[in-house]
């Protein structure tokens, strides 16, 4: 048995590389694992995508440990992307900190026993001791620790109880009491392994039939999973019946949580709860953030302060005409143009006059850089209407950032209180018809905020097939918040009947897209199988941390694509390609859609930012029928350039371009048919 002892191993590769041991946090979903990670790593963490997947791994530092947070899993295996990522992080661990929910030992100990069978030096954190009390239960912790053979620390993570003891226990991490029969079966496999960090852990994976791990060692996987799982399940049940005692009846808190949990699933009470939640999101993110905050930051800070500042830098040496709108509230009360044929620095007198004119007034400055020289074109690319240094910065910092923070905060609250899996259960039926399951409700709802962000969130779906279907629905048929305001305004003009017609068209298209993609793609989507955690109050620290981590990682990922997108569009603008595109679509717009020629421009502009498209329509004088047709087209039309870029990254260039090109075709086909009918 000598070969089976892990401590006799030389320094592990991860230690050699960084001089730090790798501490991996492992636990079932919703056991409060992130609170432990927060405690150990503080605020400064790295979020990265695991190579080859889109699952996020968070990493931080604590003393001489690299602390790795893994996605919540029910066992180490490879049923989905998250499990595969967690598996590889676990297999390379020097020490494992296994967080378990004291109120749910029967579920959580399954993973614990597996980790013990894999012979990692580990510590078990028995979390939610307060909830255990509420539930009227008691655990014989000493006995449990004796059976498992590893240190167990009682923790109430929300109240920060038990962290000191946990830190001490980490120094005494031990390898627990594995299943003797299993260890015996592992021996022949261990003998055949290549050099690896944790031979027994790898051998367990191979015996349980994990193909990837087996392939790494060049041997065939075994097929003992079910047998091992049944044995492990039986041991868990034995342990639970030995150490858990029902002490008293459930306390009020636990009863309320159970009742509330029930109400959220039952449609009769669940639908009003959902409506309430959506209304709250709409009021806070849609009205407060999108209209008030963004209205202020985008216009006041972005358009009036930041952009003119950048543009003036370029204007000093570039021929430009600056037209100034003097504003009184929303209204333009005076307009005056100043021409600087050789840049503002060469014409002091004119520039002084300009400065005197805007002095003390609320103004919007519009810069038209001369495009006669190559320099002028370059300036337009970087600081023009869609300039990478102007529009993109305003868009990212003053419009997108507040919105993304708002949405992620709500997502974190809903996630933290245990509502999302229940919502997924309630709406599951609606999604099975279009090749998805209830989990897809989250990206779809987020889509009404920002399709780019929602496309990133399709990661939480379990199979590539479902991700494709959800990404298609999002990018074809969901209007994002940038459009919603203009759509609402135009529909008010069109009246109630046409509003209903519009909703009917878009809903049919959404269902049609889902059904068609579901039919085309080979295979079958997975049915819902989801564990419902108890409802509880969201914890502020957790919500803030999650919001911060998610926002940071989204902004990091999306920012380069927004810049690239802006560069592309600006180049198209200065080379005349954009205008050419508008011209190309004019005949289709006037003849096939029966809309004024100018709406072609609005559609093409929608490629850049979806609200550009929608706002362009607002200026035109359209009949109610034309409003329905044009709104149908812009809603079904291609996603904005940033969404497209993220879509390429998430789903690959082939799928992204299929969706993008398909949107042109679909939007104009459906638009034309609607124009013919109404």
């Amino acid at each position, binding site marked *: 048995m000598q070969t089976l002892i892990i401590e006799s191993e030389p320094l592990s590769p991860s230690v050699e590389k960084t001089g730090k041991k790798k501490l991996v946090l492992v636990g079932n979903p919703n056991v409060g694992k992130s609170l432990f990670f927060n405690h150990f790593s503080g605020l400064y963490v790295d979020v990265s995508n695991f190579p080859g997947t889109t699952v996020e791994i968070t990493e931080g530092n604590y003393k001489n440990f690299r602390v790795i947070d893994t996605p919540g899993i*029910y*066992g180490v*295996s490879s*049923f989905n992307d998250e499990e595969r990522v967690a598996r590889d992080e676990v297999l390379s661990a020097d020490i494992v900190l296994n967080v378990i929910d004291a*109120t*749910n030992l*029967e*579920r959580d100990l*399954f*993973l614990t026993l597996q980790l013990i069978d894999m012979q990692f030096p580990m510590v078990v954190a028995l979390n939610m001791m307060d909830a255990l009390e509420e*539930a009227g239960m008691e655990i014989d912790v000493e006995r449990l620790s004796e059976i498992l053979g590893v240190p167990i620390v009682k923790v109430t993570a929300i109240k920060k109880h038990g962290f000191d003891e946990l830190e001490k226990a980490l120094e005494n991490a031990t390898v627990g009491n594995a299943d003797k029969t299993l260890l015996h079966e592992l021996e022949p496999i261990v003998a055949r392994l290549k050099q690896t960090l944790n031979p027994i852990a790898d051998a367990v994976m191979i015996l349980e039939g994990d193909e990837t791990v087996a392939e790494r060692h060049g041997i065939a996987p075994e097929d003992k*999973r*079910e047998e091992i*799982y*049944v044995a*492990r*399940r039986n041991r*868990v*049940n034995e342990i639970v019946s030995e150490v858990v005692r029902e002490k008293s009846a459930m306390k009020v808190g636990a009863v309320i949580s159970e009742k509330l*949990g*029930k109400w959220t*699933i*039952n*449609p009769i009470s669940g639908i009003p709860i959902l409506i309430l939640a959506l209304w709250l999101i709409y009021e806070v993110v849609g009205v407060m953030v999108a209209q008030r905050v963004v209205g202020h930051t985008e216009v006041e800070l972005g358009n009036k302060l930041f952009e003119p500042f950048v543009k003036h830098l370029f204007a000093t040496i570039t021929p430009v005409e600056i037209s100034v709108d003097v504003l009184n509230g929303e209204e333009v009360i005076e307009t005056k143009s100043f021409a600087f044929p050789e840049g503002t620095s060469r014409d002091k007198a004119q520039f002084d006059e300009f400065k005197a004119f805007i002095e003390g007034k609320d103004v919007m400055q519009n810069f038209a850089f001369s495009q006669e020289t190559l320099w002028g074109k370059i300036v337009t690319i970087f600081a023009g209407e869609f300039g990478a240094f102007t529009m993109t910065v305003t868009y990212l910092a003053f419009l997108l950032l507040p919105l993304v923070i708002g949405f992620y905060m709500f997502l974190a609250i809903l996630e933290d209180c245990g509502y999302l*899996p*229940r919502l*997924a*259960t*309630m709406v*599951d*039926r609606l999604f*099975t018809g279009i090749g998805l*399951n*209830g989990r897809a409700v989250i990206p779809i709802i987020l889509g009404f905020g920002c399709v780019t962000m929602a496309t990133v969130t399709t990661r939480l779906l379990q199979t590539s097939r479902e991700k494709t279907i959800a990404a298609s629905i999002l990018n074809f048929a969901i209007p994002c918040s940038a459009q919603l305001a203009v759509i609402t305004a135009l529909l008010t003009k069109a009246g109630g009947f046409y509003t209903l017609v519009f909703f009917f068209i878009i809903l049919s298209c959404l269902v049609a897209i889902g059904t068609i993609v579901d039919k085309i793609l080979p295979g079958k989507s997975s*049915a*819902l*199988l*989801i*564990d*419902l955690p*108890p409802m509880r109050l969201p914890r502020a620290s957790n919500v803030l941390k999650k919001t911060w981590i998610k926002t940071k990682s989204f902004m990091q990922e999306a920012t380069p694509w927004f810049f690239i997108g802006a560069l592309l569009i600006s180049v198209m603008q200065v080379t005349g390609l954009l205008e050419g595109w508008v011209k190309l679509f004019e005949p289709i717009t006037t003849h096939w859609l029966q809309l004024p020629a100018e709406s072609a421009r609005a559609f093409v502009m929608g490629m850049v930012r979806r609200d550009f498209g929608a706002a362009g329509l607002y200026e035109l004088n359209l009949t109610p029928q034309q409003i329905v047709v044009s709104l149908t087209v812009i809603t079904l039309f291609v996603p904005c350039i940033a969404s497209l870029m993220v879509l390429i990254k998430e789903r690959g260039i082939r799928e992204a371009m299929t969706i993008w090109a398909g949107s042109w075709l679909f939007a104009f086909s459906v638009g034309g048919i609607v124009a013919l009918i109404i």
Partner: protein
Amino acid sequence: MQSVQSNLISLRAVKKGERFIVRQIDDKDMRTQLLRFGLAEGSEAMCFERLPFGPVVVKHRRQEVAIGEELTKKIWVEVIAN
């Protein structure tokens, strides 16, 4: 599909509030996944909630698991008296 004993009904047909013993699960992947949730062939559970044409929520000790309609057709249970 495997043969099913005559006293068994599919989870699809269990009424809300009824207690039952899981006797047979016809899908290998689901069998292993449910094992991890604590629901094995032989374990006792209760139908906690069922949605019209939708998932069935099963409660097993303190654990609630929502099982999509497709999967409920593959789980065979024996209803027991309360």
